[in-house]
């Protein structure tokens, strides 16, 4: 038991690594917030563009949505980080993580909003158009709000999953929680920093996961 405490919850090491870990925590939160904002905004733009059914662009957007939902986030991040230098673009690990996760989330969000748009009854479109509103106005005032509301439960879960993906930043040298705790673990030859890092993640995500359950219940239209 003493051994376990000495290895896994070593107070001295915990104390020494805490400032670095908190800095990593800040990076994690910043990356998550930016990726989520960009991703959801991107999803809204894509779903809106698809509503206009512009030839060629529509097909390209479908491929975009399918591609980023079929390829693992970690692969996307690695591709963005290690691929961009070949076109002369040097992204920091943090930027590459934000960009990669935003791409993935925008594909999922677009799919969710698009499903919402498609399932708004045709009568609502017709009613809107018959009152003299233009297509864009019907879309923005009548259809989109419904589509977004319908998508909220699924989108919440997806958003949390993408925010958890910030941990992948550690693989492409973004200095977030996991990467800080990994290097501290190597410095001290002790897993305490990893345990602390894991606790920091739980501190953020357990409330979010429980909130998502609440949101699911509140917004669920089926029950």
């Amino acid at each position, binding site marked *: 038991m003493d051994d376990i405490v000495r*290895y896994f919850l070593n107070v001295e090491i915990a104390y020494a690594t805490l400032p670095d870990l908190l800095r990593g925590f800040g990076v994690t939160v910043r990356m998550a917030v930016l990726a989520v904002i960009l991703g959801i905004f991107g999803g809204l733009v894509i779903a809106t563009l698809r509503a206009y059914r512009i030839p060629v662009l529509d097909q390209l957007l479908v491929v975009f949505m399918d591609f980023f939902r079929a390829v693992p986030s*970690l*692969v996307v991040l690695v591709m963005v980080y290690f691929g961009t230098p070949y*076109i002369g673009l040097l992204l920091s690990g943090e930027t590459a993580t934000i960009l990669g996760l935003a791409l993935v989330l925008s594909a999922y969000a677009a799919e969710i909003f698009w499903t919402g748009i498609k399932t708004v009854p045709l009568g609502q479109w017709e009613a809107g158009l018959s009152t003299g509103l233009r297509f864009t106005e019907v879309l923005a005032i009548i259809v989109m709000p419904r589509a977004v509301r319908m998508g909220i439960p699924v989108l919440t879960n997806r958003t949390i999953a993408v925010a*958890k993906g910030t941990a992948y930043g*550690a693989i492409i040298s973004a200095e977030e929680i*996991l990467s800080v705790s990994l290097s501290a673990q190597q410095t001290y030859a002790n897993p305490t920093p990893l345990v602390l890092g894991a606790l920091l993640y739980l501190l953020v*995500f*357990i409330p979010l996961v429980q909130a998502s359950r609440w949101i699911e219940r509140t917004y669920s239209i089926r029950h």
Partner: protein
Amino acid sequence: MDQFLSTFFNIDIMVAILPAMGIGLLKTLFLSAIVFPCSFVFGLLISAAGMARSRPVAFAVRAYIDFFRSFPPLVLLILIYYAAPFLGVQLDPLLAAFVALTLNASSYYAEVQRSGIESVEIGQAEAARSTGLGAVDTYLWVVLPQALRNVMSPLIGNTIELVKLTAIASVVSYSELLKVAKEMQSLLFSPTPLVTAALIYFVVLWPFVRWLSRFERQLMERD
């Protein structure tokens, strides 16, 4: 443009690395194939335990599900892989990945299966019991089939995510698709292997992603 294509989509490199990538893909599929049944059945056991009347058991089930849904899978894998030696166990990369992925996926399956069980009307179980069917038989032959049917689309979604998630095994140097691609990328100093890996994931998972989209849309439209 030619420059771009020969950097990112170099056909010669693609052909040369294909055999190695094929082996990587097989390992990806192998890991998925052992994690899927174990986590699915494990999830069933957990969701079944969640139906227990005993409050502590129901609480423990909730805690298990929320804990592992909150834990970023990569953090879990790294914790298992790098902390186990301090307990005197050296885990093989495949085993560590199997354990981490199974813990993660089982919590997602359990959550979905639980909501599926809740969606089956209580009258179904009562009717079955009144005909003399035992509790276990009622669960297995009456409740469970309907429950799984009701949550088919999130189950398919979770399974797609599981296959994608195996990419994290590359971090503990299990030589699946992403690991092979990264090795080839640094060996050949070309991003083509990474692009190839992404394309392979896309080709393998695209049919399922499409299928799921169509399936979900049909469900929404039926409501």
